């Protein structure tokens, strides 16, 4: 966990003071609605369907137990006793009052937290692998690099008013769990001739024009990372489209120029600033590293008396949880554990204040007081001693936080949808719940195996439906909500190793393909079930996942089966849909 130095703290406090003044001027009528809008967005404050929504940054998903307790306190004092973890490792409060926001920010600053650049057309919270620092397949710990990028991008004077929002993801491992292929810039750590560097993908993203990023530089040496980013952002800031917000993301610029020309323009700019004052020194990396408090692993953990296997043999429920929610760790005797925020009936990513406090206690007891937030909207206890897994499971069970569904169909990623969000065309949460209810048989879920199901309430794609193995998108047709289904999306590499050329395209991410006409809300769970049955009939073994079958046979068999089914051939009348 990174610990603020006095500069970090002062900067956050000065931002709180600045925003308090801006809010006061707005409330006093000294700042127009137009002038205030972007200023508040740059501090994560939206005006939503029911109330303002405040998005608090959790930089690269790292959260300390005392921070989580403060979030619980905020949820109780200024909200309605819960929070919502977003798909970008942030947390959102849906019910604060505008005039309370300065006080909330001041409270956050006491635990080294803020809402800086969680919205607006600026560089957003840098995201990473939720197993950063503990994954066995890691080439480099991305946390240090994320912190370096966090500092560089925070209140950057040149890039505060970009054409559109800008998201950076960093992966330090062999398997890309940061979805680098679907970010404005994706950085993948690589080693060349014994030197560390980054592959740079640009122009990936979801939204209404889903595109997988293009590799514009196969190796930027670590010293040059910030000057390269500066050059990449400068070209975008000057030349990205500003006449049409739907064409303003960097992906459109890269497409219009062609990746080659964009890369060349970046390179020209870079050559002028490369080696300049923003060059990263080893001393700086060491300083940032030294401000992290790193877990002090117990070497004797490897020889702990561990009866986990025996307990699992005796208890199927524990065995299931071990299989899905417990993950490999780089240190012998330790494991990473996912705390599932996806029980049936709870909006994906939602957590109550009481659960926050309880999880904070568990983090202190089991995990060096640290947690991670995953983009799949779950929490991770990254450093749990294996010998204590059963003890932890029992506690999580009692908190309704041990649903054994990580990697399975019911671990649905969903945006808040039309129940909360003013942008949404359709609801997400009730659809997620209906699907979870359809698939409430755990044996069946395990039989289906690994499957990402993602739901977005509108084309802004906050629920990342484009990269779900099955994606569901709420669309509006003449004032009615409909749901479009895609299959074959994925956020990272395929099961089989990609040929090197292909692996240079966005880490193997793929955008899902639409199977056909949209469905009424009440049809969606049945459609998912139909897709699953087609998959089960086609797979050659249990090891062949849904996404692998789509890769092998294409979408046609799925399409045919769904639309041949009389239940889905024609959308049900609207009146019927209204009963759901």
């Amino acid at each position, binding site marked *: 966990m990174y610990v603020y130095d006095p500069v970090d703290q002062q900067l956050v406090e000065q931002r709180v003071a600045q925003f308090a003044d801006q809010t006061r001027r707005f409330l006093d009528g000294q700042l127009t609605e137009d002038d205030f809008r972007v200023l508040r967005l740059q501090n994560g404050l939206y005006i939503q369907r029911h109330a303002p929504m405040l998005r608090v940054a959790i930089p690269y998903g790292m959260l300390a137990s005392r921070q989580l307790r403060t979030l619980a306190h905020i949820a109780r004092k200024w909200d309605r006793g819960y929070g919502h973890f977003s798909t970008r490792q942030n947390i959102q409060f849906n019910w604060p009052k505008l005039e309370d926001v300065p006080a909330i920010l001041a409270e956050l600053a006491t635990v080294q937290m803020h809402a800086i650049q969680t919205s607006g057309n600026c560089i957003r919270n840098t995201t990473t692998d939720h197993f950063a620092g503990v994954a066995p397949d890691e080439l480099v710990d991305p946390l240090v690099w994320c912190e370096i990028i966090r500092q560089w991008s925070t209140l950057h004077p*040149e890039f505060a*008013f970009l054409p559109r929002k800008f998201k950076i993801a960093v992966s330090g491992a062999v398997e890309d769990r940061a979805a680098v292929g679907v970010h404005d810039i994706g950085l993948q750590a690589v080693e060349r001739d014994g030197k560390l560097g980054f592959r740079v993908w640009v122009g990936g993203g979801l939204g209404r024009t889903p595109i997988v990023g293009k590799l514009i530089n196969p190796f930027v040496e670590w010293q040059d990372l910030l000057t390269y980013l500066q050059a990449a952002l400068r070209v975008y800031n000057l030349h990205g489209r500003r006449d049409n917000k739907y064409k303003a993301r960097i992906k459109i610029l890269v497409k219009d120029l062609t990746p080659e020309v964009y890369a060349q323009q970046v390179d020209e700019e870079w050559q002028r600033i490369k080696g300049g004052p923003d060059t990263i020194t080893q001393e700086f990396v060491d300083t940032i590293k030294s401000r992290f408090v790193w877990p002090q692993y117990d070497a004797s953990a490897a020889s702990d008396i561990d009866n986990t296997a025996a307990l699992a043999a005796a208890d199927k429920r524990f065995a299931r949880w071990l299989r899905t929610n417990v993950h490999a760790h780089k240190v012998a005797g330790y494991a990473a554990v996912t705390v599932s925020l996806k029980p049936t009936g709870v909006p994906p990513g939602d957590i109550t204040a009481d659960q926050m406090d309880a999880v904070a206690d568990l983090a202190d007891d089991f995990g060096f007081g640290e947690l991670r937030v995953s983009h799949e909207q779950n929490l991770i206890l990254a450093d749990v001693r294996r010998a204590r897994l059963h003890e932890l499971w029992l506690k999580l069970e009692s908190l309704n936080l041990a649903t054994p569904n990580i990697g399975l169909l019911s671990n649905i990623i969903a945006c808040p949808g039309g129940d909360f969000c003013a942008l949404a065309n359709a609801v997400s949460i009730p659809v997620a719940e209906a699907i979870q209810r359809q698939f409430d048989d755990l044996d069946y879920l395990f039989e289906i195996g690994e499957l990402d199901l993602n739901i977005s309430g509108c084309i802004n794609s906050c629920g990342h439906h484009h990269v779900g193995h099955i994606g569901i998108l709420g669309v509006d047709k003449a004032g009615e909500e409909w749901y479009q289904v895609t299959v074959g999306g994925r956020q990272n590499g395929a099961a089989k190793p990609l040929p090197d050329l292909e692996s240079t395209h966005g880490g193997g991410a793929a955008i899902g393909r639409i199977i056909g006409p949209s469905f009424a809300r009440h049809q969606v769970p049945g459609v998912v079930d139909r897709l699953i049955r087609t998959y089960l009939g086609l797979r050659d073994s249990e090891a062949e996942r849904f996404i692998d079958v789509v890769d092998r046979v294409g979408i046609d068999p799925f399409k045919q089966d769904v639309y041949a089914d009389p239940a889905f051939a024609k959308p049900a009348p609207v009146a019927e849909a209204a009963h759901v």
Partner: protein
Amino acid sequence: MSEIYAHDAPGPHLIRNGRLEADTSRPFVPEPEVPAEGQVPADEPGWIVPLSVWKTSRATLRRHKHPVAVLLNPDADLTDLADADGTLHPEGIAFIAVDFPVYTDGRGYSLAQLLRTRYQWQGELRAVGDVMIDTIHYQARVGFDSFLVKPGHDPHKALDAFKTFTVHYQKTYLAPTPAAATA
């Protein structure tokens, strides 16, 4: 908007040399009917000319007793400002102004950085247009040293805004103070 003008503090709106002064400059608008080429303002103090005028008539303007200011739009091509040798020669230029048509158009920030670094512009660099209390800090950091604060924003509060942040992460950008606004 009219309501907000009611809050306007009377007096000057231009921050220059770290204090407020009256803005004495006036825009030179070429006749639209006539080709811009050859159109120059009279040899008097205070003119701001569009980049197109500077580009076509820099030799004439440089013979003037009174240098002109050059106004850049956000989509300005800085090579038009430079001479044929690619470098920016300051002769004849009173100051360079960069227009912010709306404060959310951030191109002016990169233009300012390029003027200060790549083109080595040492003279006055003025932010004009949608310049707010809330943008001045960033504008000072990228190299602006004079600021025409827009109506509705108290210029005295704008002067204070240089102190909004006393610490910064980005090493290559300036750390502004009102004193640093004195070029």
